[in-house]
């Protein structure tokens, strides 16, 4: 987890996520701007009501998340960053992912946080399975 670098907290876990934990992880006296992104389970997708949602991850998920974090830290003037993702069975309103980046200035913090969540979504091996109110289901991301 924390290793003394700018990467303060990375985790993929079954327990409910805490925004406070993530914000505390990126707190730093040198930070002038902190951006946090919170992804939550939505009650609707593609016009259908969502009843339940399950996330699962590949065993290499921690390494992949670290690779994403290291790239963000290398490409932006980041003071501290953190990213946590939940796996298991979630319900509408649950936090699925929380990422935060602190920088000296807000512009860098916005850009770095944007890259952190976008790269996490596209390259970290996590899968999402949705069950709808009409009994149908789908694996998100499969055309």
């Amino acid at each position, binding site marked *: 987890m924390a290793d003394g670098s700018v990467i303060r907290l990375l985790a993929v876990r079954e327990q409910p996520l805490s925004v406070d934990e993530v914000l505390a992880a990126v707190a730093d006296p040198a930070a002038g701007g902190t951006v946090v992104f919170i*992804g939550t389970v939505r009650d609707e997708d593609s016009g259908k009501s969502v009843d339940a949602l399950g*996330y*699962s991850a*590949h065993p*290499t998920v921690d390494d992949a998340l670290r690779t994403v974090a290291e790239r963000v830290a290398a490409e932006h003037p980041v003071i501290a960053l953190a990213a946590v*993702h939940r796996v298991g069975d979630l319900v509408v309103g649950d936090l*699925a*992912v929380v990422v935060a980046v602190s920088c000296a200035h807000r512009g860098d913090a916005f850009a770095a946080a944007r890259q952190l*969540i976008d790269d*996490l*979504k*596209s*390259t*970290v*091996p*996590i*899968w*999402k*399975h949705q069950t709808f109110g009409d009994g149908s289901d789908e*694996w*998100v*991301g*499969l*055309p």
Partner: protein
Amino acid sequence: MATGTVRFWAAARAAAGKSEQAYDGATLGSVVDALGAEHGPELARILGHCSFLVDGARVGRDFQLSQGEVIEVLPPFAGG
């Protein structure tokens, strides 16, 4: 020809109805095609969108398999 283990993840696991099985083939592409033929159109469709790891490294269809390797079938990621 080489034999080894195929490990299915997420949508591919659901479509195959199992988490792993044995394979017998020379290249990744030949094994993937055989899996689609064996399990039917739904898995074949999913396989068209998957990436593949062989012993942990991402490889393409032309990859020449060696004896005892593990192929992992990874559907598109959808975190967040």
